[in-house]
């Protein structure tokens, strides 16, 4: 087990280097010198030259890249080109916002998907509702769902704030009020994804002999569903929860932008808009780390949930 974890983590390092190198070289090749971007269109060539020299943008690209990697390994990701703040201090405050949103939305989606799809009682009535919610979740884009919710609950009913975010410190109630719509918006999509994955597995599990045996013994339908079918069908959901958490380390781009939440996703969008390389690169690297770590966690959870499986 330990060797597998170590091997996975070691594999993450070349992946990270390859991806950031790719990003580094293509970004510079396609967008031109960061100095030109920083100074704007009206900058004189002399000013660009001076800034290039000051920040070392005039050195060969590969040296700049190695320099960046070496500093990044020490936790120094450089300074944002737009705000001149250090990248770490720009990104760090965004991380808890994104993590809270992502974790709550994904857990909620996973619990709801597993529970509603397991429930045997009233499958005839509940089934179409669950399927409908599931289809809406994966086909209606986040922004459309979010705007509809904002229209109904903020503009028309006035129950919840439309956008913005308040920290825990300024009151629990205000914080939760601002979180409800974004969480619902984000979790709808994942509810759809998890439902599809779980239902497919459940269909297979329900055909197996031990389910028939449990039914034949006269165990109640809901007990068969929750105690016998559920544990055997939940594994793929765990994988997808890990995958989704990993993908969301870079932020829930659309949801955060729509609701003006100060998370990494919105920071990524704004850094892309202002061509702020150091911030973009650091977030890209964070995403790769997140994806690798979360997949690893999912694999570990997998073996805990089902001792029959040993990853190797």
């Amino acid at each position, binding site marked *: 087990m330990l060797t597998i974890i170590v091997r996975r983590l070691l594999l993450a390092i070349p992946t990270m280097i390859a991806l950031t190198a790719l990003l580094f070289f293509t970004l510079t090749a396609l967008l031109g010198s960061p100095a030109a971007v920083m100074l704007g269109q009206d900058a004189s060539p002399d000013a660009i030259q001076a800034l290039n020299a000051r920040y070392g943008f005039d050195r060969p690209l590969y040296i700049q890249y190695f320099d960046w990697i070496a500093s990044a390994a020490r936790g120094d990701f450089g300074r944002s080109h737009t705000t001149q703040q250090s990248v770490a201090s720009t990104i760090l405050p965004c991380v808890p916002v994104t993590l809270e949103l992502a974790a709550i939305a994904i857990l909620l989606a996973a619990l709801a998907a597993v529970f509603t799809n397991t429930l045997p009682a009233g499958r005839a009535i509940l089934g179409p509702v669950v399927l409908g919610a599931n289809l809406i979740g994966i086909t209606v884009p986040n922004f459309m769902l979010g705007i509809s919710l904002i229209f109904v609950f903020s503009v028309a009913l006035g129950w919840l704030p439309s956008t913005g975010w308040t920290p825990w410190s300024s009151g629990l109630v205000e914080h939760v009020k601002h979180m409800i719509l974004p969480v619902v918006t984000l979790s709808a999509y994942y509810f759809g994804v998890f439902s599809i994955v779980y239902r*497919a597995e459940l269909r297979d599990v329900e055909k197996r002999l031990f389910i028939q045996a449990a039914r034949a013994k006269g165990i109640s339908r809901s007990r068969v569903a929750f105690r016998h079918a559920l544990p055997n069908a939940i594994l793929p959901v765990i994988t997808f929860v890990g995958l989704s958490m990993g993908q969301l380390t870079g932020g829930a*781009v659309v949801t955060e932008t729509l609701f003006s939440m100060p998370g990494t996703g919105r920071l990524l969008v704004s850094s892309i808009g202002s061509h702020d390389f150091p911030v973009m690169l650091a977030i890209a690297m964070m995403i790769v780390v997140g*994806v690798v770590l979360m997949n690893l966690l999912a694999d570990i959870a997998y073996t805990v949930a089902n001792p029959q499986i040993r990853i190797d």
Partner: protein
Amino acid sequence: MSSPRRIVGLALIALILACAVLAPWLAPYDPLRSSVAFLSPPSSANWLGTDELGRDVLSRVIYGARTSLVIGFGAALVALLIGAPVGLIAGYTGGRVDMVSVVLIDLFVSLPGLVLALVITVMVGPSLQNLVLVLGFVMWPSVARLIRGQVLPIREATFVEAARAVGGSPAWIIGQHIWPNTMRVVAAQFAVTVSFAIFTSSSLSFLGLGIPPPTPDWGGMVRAGYDFLAINPLLSLGPGAAVGVTVLGFYLVGSTVE
């Protein structure tokens, strides 16, 4: 299997296709013509109202079908053109080629597609042609993965062994025996890919990286209308619903053959 899902899906696609093809006849106004009636509410003259430049929103939604379908089909085609050869060759050849492809595919698939598309689009610049290429490039790995999975059992089939025994070259076997047998699943996946492409491209334009104005583009319209949600929600919800209907249609058709 002609399930109700498939029929509903086909009906929705037919509706959107009709909008795209018959746009000049269906749309009551020129989608690009502004008027002085800024932000007028829904009325019998402008069913969905007019936008901040006084353009008829319904006409823009109808014309927007063209943009979305071109991006959806174009991107799915690009994804197929890259993904199919990779999947076929990896699955049929096996060994080291397969291993490298699978590692590459898994890496791509686990990265968030929207973020990838976002970063590449900002580098190459948003234009219709670039968006098609970028989205196709983001989506090819899932196509490749699906086709590879289809090839593995077919490779072991007796008719393929027979084809090898009579001296068929790998290219001939893939083209004549393997590819046709993956067609059913590939066709379904194509529809799903179209739906994802439209989903992602509308999200990109919502974030401000879509087709540059004034071309009618649903995601961009939702974004522009968002500021006027309290005045006329249909500015946003109209084009947003169009995205939902289109994505749903292609998804329903594609997901019936899973």
